């Protein structure tokens, strides 16, 4: 079994399986993420949002899952690099003329590029929110500019909602986020249904459903995410 599983993971099919598996895991994370963030639409001066954020920051299960999440992202990226390197060796001499547009979608062919953009965006995103939160929680001063913790939130040192507003007051950052979300949309558009194909789930009765689910999922998630910096920037959310 051990021999078999290692050969499975080393095979091209096994690698794709890992890509799909980690991808779907990240897709499920996005649902949680967007739900928490959507709490700002209670428009209650961030009260609900801060409550949810506080829960996420302190719950022990979430903390464990968070480690898994990072491992998932790393596995997804490493596997993507390994596969891309292997793939580029599979065609050393390129075509002089290639007409791929007729046979496949540009974003299906550009998952590596979209993924790289997403990684860059992710670094910005983590620097904006995750690092400050961790610093606020565990940092030496445990105090970060822009955070203002209301009373009554045990363990929560700062106010994440205020932080949101501060960050998204910057039009450049808002633009970066919107571009990042466009990349995310196309990455998901291919990735969602592709994961099912890699698991071997392709059936004439169900695949159209999976594909449309993937489309609506990608659209909804990205629109919801995109609405947040926009509404905050425009001051529609108080």
């Amino acid at each position: 079994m051990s021999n078999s599983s290692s050969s499975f993971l080393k095979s091209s099919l096994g690698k794709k399986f890992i890509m799909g598996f980690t991808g779907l895991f990240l897709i499920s994370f996005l649902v949680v993420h967007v739900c928490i963030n959507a709490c700002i639409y209670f428009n209650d001066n961030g009260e609900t949002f801060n409550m949810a954020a506080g829960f996420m920051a302190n719950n022990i299960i979430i903390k464990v899952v968070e480690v898994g999440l990072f491992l998932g992202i790393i596995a997804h990226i490493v596997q993507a690099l390994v596969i891309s390197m292997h793939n580029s060796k599979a065609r050393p001499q390129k075509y002089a003329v290639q007409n791929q547009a007729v046979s496949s979608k540009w974003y299906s062919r550009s998952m590596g590029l979209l993924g790289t953009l997403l990684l860059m965006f992710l670094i910005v995103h983590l620097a904006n929110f995750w690092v400050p939160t961790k610093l606020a929680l565990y940092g030496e001063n445990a105090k970060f500019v822009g955070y203002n913790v209301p009373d009554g939130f045990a363990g929560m040192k700062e106010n994440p909602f205020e932080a949101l507003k501060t960050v998204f007051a910057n039009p450049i950052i808002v633009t970066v986020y919107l571009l990042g979300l466009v990349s995310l949309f196309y990455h998901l558009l291919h990735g969602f249904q592709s994961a099912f194909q890699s698991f071997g789930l392709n059936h004439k009765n169900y695949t159209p459903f999976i594909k449309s689910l993937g489309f609506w999922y990608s659209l909804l998630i990205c629109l919801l995410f995109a609405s947040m910096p926009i509404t905050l920037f425009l001051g529609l959310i108080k």
Partner: protein
Amino acid sequence: MSHGNMNLTLKIWRQNSGSEPGQLVTYPVKDISPDMSFLEMFDVLNEQLVAKNESPIVFDHDCREGICGMCSMVINGRAHGPKTGITTCQLHMRSFKDGDTIVVEPWRAQAFPVIKDLTVDRSSFERIQAKGGFISVNTGTAQDANCLPIPKDDADASFNAAACIGCGACVATCKNASAMLFVAAKVSQFALLPQGKVEATTRVKNMVAQMDAEGFGSCTNTSACEVECPKGISLENIARMNREYLVANCVD
């Protein structure tokens, strides 16, 4: 049916052998009838080259009716040319216009090294097939053919997978030069039949291992192979192979 003849500019990949570099060489051709097949247009060009005592362009072709899978040209960036559902030999010149420039290249993949000009070595497919693309039944040991009823849908699906002509257009088209569609078609053909289930796990494992060893890229599910496949082999076969492979690795 003739709509007047055409003059064309061809840019064709010439490469003397696998160990030498190649390049695109420009050849004008005149007076090409729209009723000619693409390969007949090559015949005309080659006759001209012979007349000039130059060596003709080497390209694979045999049946010229779209079934042997020998012909293999990337025409203006598309495997088997601008039309779908046909092989290069079934392409006719009426698909082009007077004055067109046509770029013709060989299949390009690490696992399909160029032998000469537009001819490539597809023996990697042979080795994959030899690893498991069969049912181990010796001649003479078979029971009566109707002892084993097979649901029509399964038989038809198996047939649709078996329609693969092994031309390699899937590899040529795939951005990663992946052979998944070919291997999946072979795996599926047998996996769908009760006769083939006996060896299903070893078959898929051995064929995938050989596919990887040959240096093909991996599948990114862009579905380009399905679009360019002259026989319309479905992506469902790739999913089936993924499934078979997963199960095979889970059970032993």
